């Protein structure tokens, strides 16, 4: 049983998807999705423990030995991302029941859970696999199901958003497949460890360079790195609340992990930097993303869209850590994957709670909401403080390590830029807090209650965790440092 944990993490949601479909009754399919997510979370937790004590865990699917067979290879980096994805899935599922019922009624809800389980399975598969083509297949499983999930939004604009994401996402995935194909044509292997060894033996060639370019652009499209982020704001704005929270907290995180894996484990980044200044390219894009994302967020009245733009800025921070190419910067990136997943997931859930009661996520309708739904609004503001990076929140920890990494690299102006862009976050969070707490509710507004406990508790679990991990960083920083060491040290 324990030897098969790596396979089970992916297989359980994969079996869960058709089970949801066959059961049809919405309560049952919800229960299947819930249990599937929780089991995956439990197994990811066990796997992380195993990786932390024993080092790398490998699993040969079907008993075929790597590099010929497909191998699952779990080190500290992907064990941590697996934990992030499955933890978010497990917390969001209890929330989903009420939220999904209020947003698209009772018909065909089982299909929603089927698509969710497939997306969940794909994201876990991308993270766990040690085979590049397998990574592409799982990436497409998660992408295609996420197009479906986004299209289920109430607003008809969700359809156009999903369509745009489909076109851009497919171009991104095709770029990745071209890159993988070119790598295969030069090295004759698809296994990540094997690729790393064989690429190191190759002299730099145009084919390798083209493969690298296709992969970086393709992954950046999935990651929504500025200027390839255009699909993201609409997709997050019009998707159902639960889907926005889930995708914002997991999909871009997994893409960031894939970028790390390709840059550090497969291509050795210091070798590439001799040929293409990839660190400078990423640095510039990351800094623009930080400022552009935050600045645009300030002017949004639709709060889901505001959070979406804020996500683009936060992706900037993650990529900034990568571009520093030192252990501290990488630690910051990896820990921010976790912290941002908690904060942004929690904030989208808080918006979901508010949308559940007032059917709107527009700032104008938020007047006095702080008194009408105190717990939900408090969760939103606490999450916002984390985005700003106020001390004692998880966001502070990420930014602290990010600034340390920049100083270590000798780039102190970058440290200043990080602080300045955080100040822009103060503005957009303050706008919401001001309207929510200091503007009186409009005359004759209906009395509304706090969101139901099944929605409020998951929201506060994520927000509470983001506060907890702002104080006790032993787990997050410990694992992230280990992951950074593995990535920088090579195949590990």
């Amino acid at each position: 049983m324990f030897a098969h944990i790596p396979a089970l993490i992916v297989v359980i949601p994969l079996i869960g998807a058709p089970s949801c479909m066959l059961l049809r009754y919405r309560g049952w399919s919800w229960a299947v999705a819930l249990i599937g997510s929780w089991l995956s979370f439990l197994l990811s937790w066990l796997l992380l423990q195993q990786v932390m004590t024993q080092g790398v865990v490998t699993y040969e699917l079907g008993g075929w030995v790597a590099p010929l067979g497909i191998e699952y290879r779990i080190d500290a980096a992907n064990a941590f991302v697996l934990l992030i994805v499955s933890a978010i899935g497990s917390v969001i599922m209890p929330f989903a029941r009420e939220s999904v019922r209020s947003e698209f009624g009772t018909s065909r809800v089982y299909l929603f859970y089927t698509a969710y389980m497939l997306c969940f399975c794909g994201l876990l598969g991308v993270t766990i696999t040690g085979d590049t083509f397998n990574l592409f297949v799982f990436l497409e499983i998660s992408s295609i199901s996420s197009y479906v999930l986004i299209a289920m939004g109430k607003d008809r604009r969700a359809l156009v958003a999903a369509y745009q994401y489909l076109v851009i996402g497919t171009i991104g995935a095709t770029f990745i497949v071209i890159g993988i194909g070119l790598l295969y044509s030069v090295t004759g292997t698809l296994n990540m460890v094997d690729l790393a060894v064989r690429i190191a033996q190759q002299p730099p060639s145009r084919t390798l360079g083209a493969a690298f370019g296709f992969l970086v652009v393709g992954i950046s499209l999935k990651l929504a790195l500025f200027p390839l982020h255009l699909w993201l704001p609409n997709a997050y704005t019009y998707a159902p609340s639960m889907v926005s929270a889930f995708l914002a907290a997991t999909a871009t995180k997994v893409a960031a992990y894939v970028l790390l894996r390709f840059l550090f484990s497969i291509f050795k980044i210091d070798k590439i930097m001799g040929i293409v200044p990839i660190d400078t390219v990423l640095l510039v894009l990351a800094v623009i993303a930080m400022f552009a994302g935050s600045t645009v967020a300030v002017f949004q009245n639709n709060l889901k869209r505001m959070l979406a733009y804020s996500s683009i800025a936060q992706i900037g921070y993650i990529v900034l850590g990568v571009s520093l190419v030192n252990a501290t910067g990488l630690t910051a990136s990896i820990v921010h994957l976790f912290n941002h997943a908690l904060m942004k997931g929690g904030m989208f859930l808080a918006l979901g709670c508010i949308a559940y009661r007032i059917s709107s996520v527009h700032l104008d309708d938020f007047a006095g909401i702080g008194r009408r739904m105190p717990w939900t609004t408090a969760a939103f503001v606490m999450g916002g403080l984390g985005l700003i990076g106020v001390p004692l929140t998880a966001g502070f920890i990420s930014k602290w390590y990010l600034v340390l990494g920049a100083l270590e690299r000798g780039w102190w102006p970058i440290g200043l830029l990080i602080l300045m862009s955080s100040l822009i976050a103060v503005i957009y969070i303050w706008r919401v807090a001001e309207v929510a707490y200091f503007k009186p509710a409009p005359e004759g507004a209906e009395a509304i209650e706090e969101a139901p406990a099944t929605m409020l508790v998951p929201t506060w679990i994520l927000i509470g965790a983001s506060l907890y991990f702002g104080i006790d960083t032993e787990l997050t920083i410990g694992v992230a440092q280990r992951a950074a060491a593995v990535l920088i040290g090579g195949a590990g």
Partner: protein
Amino acid sequence: MVVGLYNYWIVAFLMMAGFYIVVAHGNFIKKLVGLNIFQGSVFILYITFGKVSGGTAPIVESGYTVYSNPLPHVLILTAIVVGVATFAVGLALVVRINEAYGSIEEDDVHLQDEES
């Protein structure tokens, strides 16, 4: 050089043609067709570099010693399935867009969104 590698030239042409259609056309169906051409070019790319000159299909048979590499061909079967699935979801979305907006032209749809 040019003639010997003609497959790769076809790949590059199809890839750019498909990509151009995706960017330049405002019709949602035409965009999907462009996307399919774009993906199709990658299929040809994989199949081409799996081919070994003078090689036959990889079936053990006396008299043949050189075989083409079957792995890229098998990989691309998977990619074709993925492409079909994407196309199906894309078309389903277009049907829903047509129901919701009464149009599948990008400009029309954006115009209606701005008005509402």
